[in-house]
């Protein structure tokens, strides 16, 4: 489609070249090409197609003229711009993007590292506190047991003391009671002895109707009682 207009120009140019015999002989090949191109352009031919005229006049084929550029070989402009682009993007990234990102990522790494270190330190500290606390609890338990044991021993000692005291008191009271009884008994015996002597004297006086002097009587009776008492004991 796009080759139709230039081809028309081309045909026209060829007609010019071959129909004008005098001109063809006289003019040089370059001049013919120039005029043909100008005519083709005047008729609306595009640059790439117009350039074909020269090739055709040189005896080349239409296929040579319209041969597509290689899809593999890179054109110069893309090579140059490609090189500039790569260098530009590398420099921009290296100078403006990379330092910030690197610093940010390193800062985060440091932060995480220090946070982990802190957490580790806190854990160690907590473990220390726990151990200390456990030791204190164990101490307290030991202390409590010791206090209870002391109290128990004290109570035992007090019990033993009180018991001994009570026994001593009982023994003292018992001996006191015994001595009191002994004293009362002696007293009673003495009283009884006097009473008996008096009664006996009276009775004897009446019996024998002989009044001895009281002193002699008393002596007589007491000796009698002694005899009696000795005999009863």
């Amino acid at each position, binding site marked *: 489609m796009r080759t139709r207009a230039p081809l028309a120009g081309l045909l026209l140019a060829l007609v010019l070249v071959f129909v004008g015999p005098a001109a063809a002989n006289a003019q040089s090949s370059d001049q013919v090409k120039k005029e043909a191109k100008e005519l083709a352009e005047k008729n609306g031919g595009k640059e790439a197609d117009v350039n074909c005229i020269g090739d055709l006049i040189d005896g080349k084929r239409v296929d040579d003229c319209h041969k*597509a*550029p290689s*899809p593999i070989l890179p054109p110069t*402009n893309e090579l140059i*711009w*490609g090189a500039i682009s*790569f260098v530009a993007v590398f420099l921009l*990234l*290296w100078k403006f993007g990379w330092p910030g990102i690197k610093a940010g990522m390193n800062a985060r790494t440091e932060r995480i590292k220090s946070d982990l270190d802190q957490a580790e330190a806190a854990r160690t500290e907590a473990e220390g506190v726990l151990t200390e606390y456990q030791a204190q609890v164990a101490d307290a338990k030991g202390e409590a047991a010791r206090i209870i044991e002391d109290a128990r021993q004290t109570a035992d000692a007090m019990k033993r003391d009180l018991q001994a005291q009570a026994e001593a008191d009982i023994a003292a009271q018992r001996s006191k009671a015994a001595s009191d009884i002994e004293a009362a008994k002696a007293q009673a015996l003495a009283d009884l002895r006097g009473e008996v002597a008096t009664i006996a004297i009276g009775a004897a006086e009446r019996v024998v109707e002989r009044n001895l002097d009281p002193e002699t009587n008393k002596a007589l009776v007491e000796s009698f009682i002694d005899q009696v008492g000795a005999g009863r004991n």
Partner: protein
Amino acid sequence: MILGLDFPPISHAIEWRDLFGTHGAFAINKVVLLMWLSVLVVAVFFFIASRRQQLVPTGVQNVAESAVDFVREGIIMQTIGKEGLFYTPFLLTVFSFVFVCNIWEIIPGAQMPVNARMALPMLMALLVWVIFNFVGVKNQGIRYLKNVCFPPGVPWPLYILVAPIEFVSTFLVRPLSLSVRLFANMLAGHLLLISFAVLSTALWNSTKVGAVLPGALLIGLTGFEILVSALQAYIFTILTAVYIGGAMHPEH
């Protein structure tokens, strides 16, 4: 006209007119415009990502850091090791630039992968060739050539075969395969999409119903080409890293 389809010649699918009246060595065409746009996209993207660095990354920063992390952990640490981290900006540039240049393939309005033209793959492959040979000579000195051609652990008579093969594969085939792999994959994908688009249009104009299957395939292939764009960027970058790593540490 093939089977009633007006299929454009390949040159029409990848050759673009010079624009703005430019000619010659600095002529600007669609591919050049897309190169500029790619530079702009990559540079602006990483610039924005680096501007407001937050402790918990979101949005652009998140994507950019994922890309950095991918290049650093997924490519460099796997192929070169820690001493390769120096090359992170370069490999990050290669990865992101190749990817953006590829992805124009499926962006409506652009629909032309820059790497379906030989210029950029060839330039980058040559640059990679220069870099990995420079690294090799810098790290191993003159023995670099010997280490490449005479890998250890080969019985000596085999060196007659191995040495020329290693030489050719390292110094001649590597840049060629690196560039042609990228170029050919993108060109093939581009032509594939064009084929199905042309087919769908033709069948829509004639039968309507007949366009359903090629239309569905066109959508599927568009998704597939996103994968190919990313994959080719990854392959180009990881091979670059492998070449640099190989030049850094001779085989033991």
